[in-house]
């Protein structure tokens, strides 16, 4: 029974959504929007599970003394900082000393909590328990008595918090943009490693790529025709390939979704 109910739910909701597509009436549209909101809300609620998993895995790493385990503290403190900034904003005066103390106390509390779960002997457990409790109480007291800033849970004031923006602009963005820019190098090394004329298929891949890559290279003889030819490759064989793949994928998606709704494929719920 426990195993059957989920499949029944998949069937009911799936069939409903299929036929909803063909009904433009307001009622059907309302149901559509409502169900999409479900998905969003369930997804956000599940975020708590994700954060808990992140915490547990970090603690596990520390417990096992894995390589680079110490860095896990940074992850959790970074997470806390961003959330704290995103929910607070200064209300008067400046974000001064009290805010700073509160941030440090809370960070210390998180580190202590991680230690608490990672250590195994009872003496150390007691000690870290005490540390986390003391820092927590102190942080709460600071939060209550410092009126230079306040929490904003239901209004997005926190998004304007200067520290939130600074962390976004100078910590998150440079790292993410650089991570993205590593592609400039990886595309080069992948091309070097894999573009070998081993067989017909590999040669076709190689020649097409080389031709397109030299489309604006003035040092190549017949450069004008190379440019024209690469333009042709992009607009003719590439278009044909895309069209075929799109149709195939479309049928694949419909088939998979159909199998899921009809209960033919149950691997996604672990009945493979």
């Amino acid at each position, binding site marked *: 029974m426990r195993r059957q109910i989920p499949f029944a739910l998949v069937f*009911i909701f*799936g069939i409903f959504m299929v036929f909803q597509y063909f009904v433009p009436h307001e009622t059907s549209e309302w149901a559509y929007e409502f169900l999409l*909101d479900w998905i969003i809300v369930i997804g956000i609620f599940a975020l708590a599970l994700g954060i808990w998993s992140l915490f547990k895995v970090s603690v596990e790493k520390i417990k096992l003394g894995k390589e680079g385990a110490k*860095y896990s503290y940074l992850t959790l403190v970074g997470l*806390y900082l*961003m959330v704290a900034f995103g929910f607070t904003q200064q209300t008067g005066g400046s974000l001064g000393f009290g805010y700073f103390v509160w941030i440090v106390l809370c960070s210390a509390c998180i580190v202590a909590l991680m230690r608490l779960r990672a250590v195994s002997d009872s003496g150390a457990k007691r000690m870290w328990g005490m540390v986390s409790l003391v820092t927590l109480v102190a942080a709460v007291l600071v939060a209550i008595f410092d009126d230079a800033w306040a929490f904003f849970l239901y209004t997005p004031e926190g998004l304007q918090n200067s520290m939130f923006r600074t962390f976004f602009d100078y910590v998150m963005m440079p790292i993410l*943009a*650089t991570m993205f*820019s590593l592609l400039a190098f990886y595309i080069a090394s992948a091309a070097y490693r894999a573009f070998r004329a081993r067989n017909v298929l590999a040669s076709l891949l190689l020649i097409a790529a080389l031709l397109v890559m030299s489309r604006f290279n003035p040092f190549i003889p017949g450069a004008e025709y190379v440019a024209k030819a690469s333009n042709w490759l992009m607009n003719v064989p590439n278009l*044909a390939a895309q069209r075929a793949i799109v149709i195939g994928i479309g049928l694949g998606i419909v088939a998979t979704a159909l199998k899921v709704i009809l209960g033919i494929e149950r691997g996604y719920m672990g009945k493979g």
Partner: protein
Amino acid sequence: MEFTEFLWMTFGVFVTLCILSFLYKDNPFYKLAEHVVVGVSAGYFVIILWHNGLVPKLFSRLADGDWYYGFLNSSHVEYLIPAILGCIMWTRFSKDYAWLSRWPMAMYIGISAGLAIPLEMSNRVNKQLHAMMAEIDWANFVGHDGFNLLDVTSGLSQTIVMIGALAAIVYFFFSKEHKGAFGAIATLGIWVLMIGFGASFGFTVMARISLFTNRLQDTFRWGNVAFNTGNANYHAGFIVVFWGLILFVAGYAVYEIVTNLKRRSSTT
């Protein structure tokens, strides 16, 4: 530019170098940047999803009512359902009731699978099929201005697109052996696919190189700030921080190389 802002900017350049050092090998600096960004970005998305997702989709819809003895007097009472389903997801924290969390997950998957069927059939199959039933430009079959094989819009090119696409579809047949005439068409299909992939790869290189150029730009801008004594807010600290970072990075590089050489000489 304020000194604190310059410090933050320097930190940005520092983490840029941290990530780039991954090209050489995994190292403590990369680990530092990696762990920081995982935490910070996770926190960032918690905030974004809260303020832009949960608040408008749920809280503000329920906020127009009050609770009377367990009865919510709101114009959107039905939004309690997703909230309850979301809470059911949290049964995963417990071992005994975790099975309950399969219900919202099943609804999630049912809704998305049901949504996909007609939508993908329409967008990927029906519309592409209709696009393939186009009239071929017979008047300009071999090119618009005389014979030109590389003319993208000539009738010949349109025909090649058509034949290539059909051959590539044939390649994807699963339940028929690729033999004989069928096999020949399938081979043509995989050739078209490979040429298309090669062209697409070659075309992307440019965009990827400019990603790196953009990072260079940011880094050089930072260097310019440090040396620009003409700047009204110029601070002597700028140059100290600049050389500090350069020395720090250079020092680590030398240390790495020396230990590497030592290790190599000890193993041989």
